[in-house]
């Protein structure tokens, strides 16, 4: 059986897949992110590269993915959001990504423009994530662009989407995941998870779907961070016990990482395909988290 990428292969054949996340630099030089890539390279199958995350301008994902792959050999997942490009530019980027050898695409709607550093800019959202998945599906399976025009060479990519198991109401999110899977999403990375019960319930609700779930893992670095996330991040549910432990301990980062290892050990038996480790802007902490998981032997 042939696989488009190492990520696809790992998800199909191995018991547990780990992915990481890197933020492109706010810089014209790729050097500023390569160290991070090297740090996590050996502990992940592939890494996400975010797309103007939280609507802040950084180097484009396309270039970042390509240069990381070329200069470090680390496989990337091209995160593509609908916020900054219309359907023409999005399709161009998929074709370009393929041409540059990038194989994994993660399709997202994107944070709204006012969250970032250019709040007065025009938000595009010409397509939403489901429509973009549909466009990619058409390109791959029918060899046509959205206008129905034939592509000389269709792309061949491994496509995924995002999901948030902690949302309330959860039903629309499940319906949306169904639509995404319908439109060709093969894997889904989740919002960061802290309460295994939430995941268990969710896995139950999506048992009818043929999609690989990678659970988002973000270590809490302080009680303050936990409280901030509960207030500002939809779907993030953090047990009080965790916040208490963070308050009581001296080395919070260590405790945060330790707690996530415990969470990972609990979710392994839940038929998840793996985990996705992310800490915005902190490739060093991603590396530490990965090392801790490896050392613990839970996977």
């Amino acid at each position, binding site marked *: 059986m042939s696989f488009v990428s190492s990520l696809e292969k790992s998800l199909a054949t191995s018991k547990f897949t780990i992915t990481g996340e890197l933020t492109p630099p706010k810089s014209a030089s790729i050097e500023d992110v390569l160290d991070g890539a090297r740090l996590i390279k050996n502990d992940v199958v592939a890494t996400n590269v975010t797309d103007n995350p939280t609507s802040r301008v950084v180097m484009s994902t396309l270039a970042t993915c390509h240069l990381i792959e070329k200069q470090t050999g680390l496989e990337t997942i091209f995160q593509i959001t609908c916020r900054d490009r219309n359907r023409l530019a999005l399709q161009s980027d998929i074709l370009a990504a393929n041409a540059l050898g990038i194989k994994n695409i993660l399709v997202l709607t994107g944070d*709204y423009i006012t969250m970032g550093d250019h709040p007065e800019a025009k938000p595009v*959202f010409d397509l*939403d994530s489901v429509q973009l998945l549909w466009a990619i599906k058409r390109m791959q399976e029918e060899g046509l662009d959205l206008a129905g025009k034939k592509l000389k060479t269709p792309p061949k990519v491994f496509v995924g989407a*995002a999901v948030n198991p902690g949302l309330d109401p959860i039903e629309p999110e499940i319906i*949306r995941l169904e639509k995404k899977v319908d439109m060709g999403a093969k894997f889904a990375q989740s919002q960061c998870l802290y309460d295994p019960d939430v995941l268990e319930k969710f896995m139950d609700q999506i048992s009818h779907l043929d999609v690989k779930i990678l659970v988002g893992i973000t270590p809490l670095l302080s009680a303050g961070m936990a409280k901030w996330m509960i207030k500002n991040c939809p779907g993030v549910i953090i047990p009080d016990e965790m916040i208490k432990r963070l308050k009581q301990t001296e080395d919070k980062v260590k405790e945060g990482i330790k707690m996530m290892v415990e969470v990972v050990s609990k979710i392994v038996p839940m038929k998840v395909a793996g985990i996705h480790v992310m800490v915005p802007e902190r490739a060093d902490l991603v590396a530490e988290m990965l090392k801790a998981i490896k050392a613990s032997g839970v996977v």
Partner: protein
Amino acid sequence: MIVTKEKPLEEILGFLTPYKKILVVGCDGCTTPPRGLREAKTYSTLVEMSGKLNNKNFECKATTVAKQCDNHDCATTLTPQIENVDAILSLACGVGVQTLVEVFPEIPIYPGQDTIFLGSQDRDNANMYEKCISCGDCILDETGGICPRTRCPKGLLNGPCAGHMDGKCEVDREKDCAWVLIYRRMKDTGQLDKFRAFRKPRNYQISTSPQQIVWK
């Protein structure tokens, strides 16, 4: 209703400075709140007083038109009043201002309002809510009568995104997530299958500006 917001007096004075005799024209038409004779008199007085603060002697007069977007109405009502007028301050929406420009091309016309949206009025809460973006392709039948193009800042058609919290939108936590509202409504009315349906991307071509239709 077309909802408008008053421009700051400072800005208005900025463009009226070169003139002396100003006709302040209100509109009794569809703006909310109405910008009729009362508003015209208010601004007429304020501009004069503001002028004095800046050593300018404006001579303002207030009047009104039934509908400033109706060029016939404008011509018949205002022609007797524009002799010796140096400039007009219009309190209508952007449509009214531009209609006046067409009817009286020789007189400088200035906007006293910013036109902000098409909306409904909730008197009890003294609020105006944007409800329609005049996309030209109404899908209210598919979304339980709640417009996602207008009420979802991202204009999603296969929403909600994962940013809603307690049913509120990630962009403005004071506002409801339109798609959660749609979901609830479709569920309550047994139309969840419509909610599940995949909606194709919006056709922007039909609303290319400036639009025009034939009206008899």
